[in-house]
């Protein structure tokens, strides 16, 4: 199951949510909008921005990066990080930017629909 998140090996597992299929791609694209970043940075960023709710399985993350790269939504090249470590930096391509727009609106339609069913009112308006 390639992009399903994995339960963390420790730290009160119940608080964290495994990522849904396909959401990881969206999160990666969103993260890269701010500028190019390496895998570890992306993982950290997703975890931090979701207020530590999401746990990103790193293996899945790297495979997802590879998949997006194959689809030419992102491009990658080796570079050097701020603290002088060798790292592979990813950045969004034009195609990826376009995908981000599409996926975002898709996601919003989905959550709105889910909200309607679960609460009787659209939940996305709050977001």
């Amino acid at each position: 199951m390639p992009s399903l998140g994995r339960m963390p090996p420790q730290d009160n597992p119940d608080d964290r949510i495994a990522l849904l299929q396909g959401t990881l791609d969206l999160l990666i694209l969103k993260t890269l909008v701010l500028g190019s970043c390496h895998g570890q940075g992306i993982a950290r960023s997703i975890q931090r921005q979701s207020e530590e709710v999401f746990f990103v399985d790193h293996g899945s993350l790297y495979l997802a990066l590879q998949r997006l790269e194959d689809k030419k939504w992102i491009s990658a090249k080796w570079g050097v990080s701020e603290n002088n470590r060798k790292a592979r930096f990813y950045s969004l391509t034009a195609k990826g930017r376009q995908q981000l727009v599409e996926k975002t609106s898709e996601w919003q339609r989905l959550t709105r629909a889910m909200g309607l069913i679960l609460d009787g009112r659209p939940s996305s308006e709050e977001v």
Partner: protein
Amino acid sequence: MFRRRRSADDFAEEIKSHFELEADELQSEGLSEEEARRRARVEFGNAQTAQERFYLRSRIVWFDNLLHDIKFASRQLIRNPSFASIAIVTLALGIAANSTIFSWINSTLLDPIPGIAHTSDMITIMRGERSEHPTPPFSYLDFADLRDSTRSFTGLLAYHDDYMAITESGKPERIYGTLASSNYFEVLGVRPILGRSLESTAPNERRGTAEAVLGYGLWQNHFGADPSIIGKIVHINLRPYTIVGVAPEGFQGCKSGLRSDLWIPLGMDSQVWGSDRIKYRDVLWLNVLGKLKPGVDHHQAENELNILMQRLAERFPDAHKGPNTISSDPLWRSPFGANVYLYGTLPILFALALVLLLLACANLANLLLVGSVARRREFAIRLSIGATRWRLVLQLMVENALIALAGGGLALLLTKWTAHGLSAFLPPTTLPLTLNGRVDRTVLVATIMISLLTAAVSGVLPALRASRLALAPVSALKDEALNTSGGIHKSRLAGGLVVGQIALSMLLLVCAGLLVSSQQKAQDSYPGFDPSHMFLASFDLKPMGYSRAQGIEFDKQMLVRLKSLPGVQSVTLGDFSPLSYTIHTDFIQPEGYVPGKNESMEVDRGVAGPEYLRTVRTALLAGRDFTDRDNASALPVSIVNKALADRYWQGQDPIGKRLQVAGHWTTVVGVAANGKYRRLVYDTAPLVLIPMLQSYRTDQIVYVRVAGDPMAYASAVERTVHGLNSDLPLFNETTLAANMRMGNAFERIAAAFAGSFGLLALILAAIGVYGVVAYATKQRTHEIGIRMALGAGKRDIFRQVLGRGLHFAGLGLVLGLIISFALTRYLRGMLYGVGTADWLTFVMVAILLCVATLIACFVPARRAASIDPMQALRTE
């Protein structure tokens, strides 16, 4: 742009860099260096799995597996050379039988007119009843009218072919030439490689233009491939023609299996053969081929032609008294050319070859079953360390494919040689035959397909069985389990295979038996003349410039001189020789006989010299033979055979009756016994003979009946003829016995192949029975030991093993009998003098198979009987 795939190492590198970055960050959050490193790894999860998944997704995994399987399979085969070689040779024989027949089908039925672009929209047009030896069905005027008014065709072409001679240099060289309508090459879509076609002769089609297009072979051999040949002159039957083009290599005219050497316009008929038939509407001499317009099928075209033909018949009733219905055929079964004799035979031979291949498959399947039981432990180990069943089946299928492809390769080598076997059955003949098979890309592809199909058919069952046997790995890994349950499972399937094999070989043997005995019967049948001690030679006076009177004088003198040679008993002439596809037909009108509406009055017609019947020893039933007094100044006479007399003058005396042959009235002076003139397997047909000295032909065959070996007279005959004209070439010097082999060539092909398929089938079945019985016996060594220990005698054991074999044979024979009865009726068209349910053949085949089974069981039975009970009990 091509981007290289990212390597797994690069990916690992990235993960390593992740650990470092994460550890740095954790350290900056206050963890110790060691703890940070540990946490980074733990947080990551399973890096190994990620790398593995990366590896799997970035590679074509199945291809890796396949390569591995092929390597493994090759090793497996090399390790077991006896198994591999038996399997490969068995399949090679089965595949070679198929690829050989296919190579023939490919270059005859599938390629009826070599060298033209598309054959699918070409049809050949026939008038009247379908026949295996039709005469050209159209007159020029009718053809021209049809061509101008049809809307179904993009073009209709007409042609007529016959022997001609190139005469510019010393001795004339005999060729087979075609008179072609001006649109001939355009309709066929054949473009000359040099010069142009005959299209520009169109305005003058009837009168003719002295132009010629050379065949590629003639250009190569006779003209030394002269690149500046265009515009030069070639003399054909003593008249000059301008060479305007050279046909492409491979194109040889419109008749399947017959090669035309050159093409000249239709209108040159008068110059080449001195005939004026192009002027008449009732002289039929043209074959017609049409290229359908896109979207028109051949039924529509046929309907249109029938309507047009009907109109012509109404407008010119006197010229359309014969049959006027038109039928069309696709080229592969065109009645003109050699395919007409092949399209019934080759598909049946192909079917027999497929049965043989099926037998070979069954044998291989049995070998694989035996092998898979022996390899059960290997499969179990592979399963228990994580291979899926599917992978196991795939692995076995790869092994089979390897065997089959090796067999296919061997078969192709054999086919390279056997493809030319078709022509080996055809005796030397004056016919410009080009029948042969060849190995081209289609045959190559077909052979590979057949091989892979073979692998699938023979391998699927054993592979599934093997993988299932190994499904309980734990029990399979235990030694004792190997010999019991596996053996029982296997022998039931194997027993079924053996029964199937015996049934199939029964079918093949029955077919072989029927065809061989039919051929034997035809061979032994009395053809109506005595073929022994007869020397034949052909010559053609036309290109030598003889007038009719000179030619007749030459014939007379030659007959006198040859007759005086020592050892020569009698001499005659003919424009044909029996059973060599040289007899012609003509339309007749017997006195007092009223033909039915559209009844075809076309019968076999031979032109024969004085003493013809005496020389060939055909019995004279009434009247007299031709003499040298039956000449131009005497009363026109004819001799008919009994079949003709019976058909048209039932119960009357034919002698003295008047008979119109090709428009000329003759008086019947003799009745000859029936004989065979086309093929031995045909029923006797009506025949009329007319005298050479009255109905002179320049193209003749001299018949010399001698004492002793006919070929010993060849030089004496040659010397005598050259005494009269030193330049006259004698060709096709042969004996009547050898020459008439053409008349049953197709039966001999069928019998020879069916016979050898039958023999192979017998051997394969015997090997199959042997394999299964021997294996089962070996498996039951323990049991036999116990039985012997309990008092069973050697004879009981022996009898029991034989009984097991006979049990297979019995079941197989019953099944085979049913299949054979159901299928042999498809052979009916190929049989002569034998019924399709010939009980003698069935009984003989059944006995043969029983004997073969017994022999195959004999060795394992003896081995079983000589088992030492103590030893047998200890082996386990």
